[in-house]
């Protein structure tokens, strides 16, 4: 059996690089200032109320409606982390910023 | 790349003739599994396919072999497998898949003694009904059966032509004797025998329905990668290949599958008929058995017995109408088979009341020789 690849040493990002990355994110995402597009679009016809987006959203942006489908209750809290639309098994959620 | 043979006159084995016939027909993919008595076909393909730009693969079992040739055919490559009884049984589910998804492939079954492991190195013709009803559900089989090494070549080409013409799996039944014996054969020049290719679509992408119910009931077939991006599934499907539970669409699909073959069966029928016009007794046999039967008929004629021979080269669909006509003024028909009686049931179904049906069977692994058949003719006439 051929041997494994040599071990890659995980490279630590310097503080400056990290700063630049969050800076970059700020510029792209402008909803916090109240203008610009809402963070997310929900195509609720395809939603089966599986509750994954509601429970895994770190900022608790969603509230369940009567049937358990997500409502974007607190859009300003959305940080575009993509957890919701990456997990959604029915492609209900899309982001206006990613 | 063309498939070239050095000299036209060759002493060739039946199995080898299948290989050359397939290459002549444009087969460029073989997925198979070793099984006596068909392995020479796989070996021949392994040697010759790469030389003409084709691909050979020995799969892990016959189920995989059948799967691989369907996959290959979907890329527009004429593909084939060869096996014997046990492998043919394993292939049945995927043969059914090829049938409902209308994928042209050729399956050669070099029959041997059955059932089960049976008689691997001995002859039998006991898979005849399996070629027709082997897999589950309603379906129409096309099966050809050569009786000489030259016909092994020609009928393989025919099998591919029928598969491409009707977009369906076609089975060729040979047997251990025919597969292993050698005869002189003149290899046809390229172009001498007709080679049929599947009809390709020439409509824009949005107009294409992979299972379109056309007047001929055979839909043009695009290949994977041609830009049509169709869906293929073993579930009963609509004209776009998407699964359906709608009774009308189900019936439409099932009618299409049956009628595309039944309505055009005359294109497929191949009957070898000898001295039947004035015959009082006709011997009915296919494949290797028919060779001995012909000899027996000549022996009977020498004894001034008006005997004739009918040999179906295309066994399925069974030539009902032609046989009713041929047997109309015949007193006796003798069905000679190397099994415990299979095609005799078809003959009993088809033969007119005026024609008494008798049988001669042998299933001990040996061939029926002309004298045995001749004696039976004397008994039955």
């Amino acid at each position, binding site marked *: 059996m*051929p041997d*494994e*690849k040599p*071990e890659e040493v995980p490279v630590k990002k310097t503080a400056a690089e990290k700063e630049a990355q969050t800076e970059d994110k700020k510029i792209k995402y402008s909803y916090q200032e109240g203008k610009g597009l809402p963070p997310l679009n929900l195509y609720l016809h*395809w939603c*089966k109320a*599986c*509750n*994954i987006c509601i*429970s*895994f959203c770190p900022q608790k942006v969603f509230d369940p409606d009567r049937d358990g489908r997500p409502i974007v209750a607190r859009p300003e809290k959305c940080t575009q982390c*993509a957890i919701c639309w*990456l*997990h*959604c*098994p*029915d*492609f209900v959620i*899309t*982001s206006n910023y*990613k | 790349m063309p498939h070239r043979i050095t000299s036209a006159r060759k002493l060739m084995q039946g199995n080898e003739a299948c290989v050359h016939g397939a290459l002549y027909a444009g087969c*460029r*993919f073989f*997925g198979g599994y070793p099984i006596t008595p068909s392995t020479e076909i796989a070996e021949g393909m392994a040697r010759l396919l*790469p*030389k003409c*730009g084709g*691909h050979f*693969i020995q*799969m*892990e*079992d016959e*189920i*995989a072999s059948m*799967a*691989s*040739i*369907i*996959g*290959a*055919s*979907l*890329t527009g490559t004429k*593909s084939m497998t060869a096996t014997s009884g046990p492998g043919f049984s394993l292939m049945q*589910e*995927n043969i059914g*898949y090829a049938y409902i998804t209308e994928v042209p492939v050729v399956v050669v079954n070099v029959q041997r003694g059955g059932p089960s492991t049976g008689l691997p190195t001995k002859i039998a013709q006991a898979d005849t009904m399996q070629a027709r009803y082997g897999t589950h559900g309603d379906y129409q089989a096309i099966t050809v059966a050569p009786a000489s090494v030259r016909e092994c070549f020609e009928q393989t080409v025919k099998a591919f032509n029928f598969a491409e013409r009707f977009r369906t799996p076609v089975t060729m039944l040979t047997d251990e004797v025919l597969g292993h014996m050698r005869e002189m054969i003149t290899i046809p020049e390229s172009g001498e025998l007709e080679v049929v290719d599947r009809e390709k679509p020439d409509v824009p992408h949005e107009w294409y329905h992979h299972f379109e119910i056309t007047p001929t009931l055979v839909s043009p077939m695009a*290949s*994977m*990668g041609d*830009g049509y*991006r169709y*869906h*293929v*599934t*073993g*579930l009963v499907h609509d004209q*776009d290949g*998407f*699964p359906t539970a709608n009774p009308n669409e189900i019936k439409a699909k099932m009618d299409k599958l049956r009628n595309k073959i039944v309505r055009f069966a005359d294109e497929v029928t191949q009957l070898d008929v000898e001295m039947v016009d004035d015959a009082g007794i006709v011997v009915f046999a296919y494949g290797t058995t028919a060779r001995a039967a012909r000899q027996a008929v000549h022996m009977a004629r020498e004894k001034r017995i008006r005997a004739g021979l009918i040999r179906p080269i295309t066994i399925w669909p069974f030539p009902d109408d032609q046989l009713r006509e041929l047997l109309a003024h015949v007193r006796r028909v003798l069905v000679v088979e190397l099994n415990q009686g299979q095609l005799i049931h078809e003959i009993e179904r088809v033969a007119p009341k005026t024609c008494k049906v008798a049988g001669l069977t042998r299933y001990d692994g040996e061939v029926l020789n002309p004298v045995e058949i001749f004696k039976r003719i004397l008994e039955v006439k």
Partner: protein
Amino acid sequence: MMADPIQSSNVTYDYLRVKKRFPNVWCAGCGIGTVMGSIIRAIDKMGYSKDEVALVSGIGCSSRLPVYCDFNTLHTTHGRAIAFATGVKLAKPSLKVIVVTGDGDGLAIGGNHFIHACRRNIDITTVLINNQIYGMTGGQCSPTTPHDSFAATAPYGNMEKGFDPTTLAKAAGASYVARGTVYHVQQLDKLIYGGLNKKGFAMVEAFSNCHTYYGRLNKEGDAVAMLKLMKEHAMPVKAAKVLPPEKLEGKFLTGVLWDVEMPEYCELYQNLIDSFQEKDKE
């Protein structure tokens, strides 16, 4: 080579089949839909044209995935997806062949084809969606159902021990083996991308939740609860190397578990064909 972060969120819509009825057929919260998104993003990231992708599947919940995707899709017989895909790939190596299979379809009835495709190292990427149960037929135990867990056909607890598909694939000769989960979707995107990028047989096991059967019969709760379980029990293979053994108790490894260079089957065959063509020229 790992993909850089996720592409845009609505990339998946470009690859869905408009003629197909949505929402998809899977239960609410089933991970297979998530895996489908992952596969589509990985394909998009690779820059494949839709015409050159062949998506092949067998029978089962996992195998209803291709019908929704706008590629050359093939929904074959139970367990035989990899055998069909081998025919497609070998006959037309220019096609990018991806197999979607499940733990039952790929390891039970399809186990023989699975290990032989690994052995051949043919350039096919197989995404094996492991929900540890037969979902389509109603919760029977599968080759990866854990020992002592319950299923419709293991009412008194599963007496058998489940396979680990990754060690099986590695032992059988696959050149790229990885495991992800439908919780760690960003990682799953990268792992599938890595598989597509690999010239050889790539197997990516996607751990998925079947709360309708496995979760219910084993009291593991709904989709959210099972996803949380995955989060707790997953252990990235890089972390596992540095952690003491007791930390790895009850965890399963995720990430790229095996990645070696080996000759690829179709290439070897093409060399053979080319060798004859050169001989013809002389």
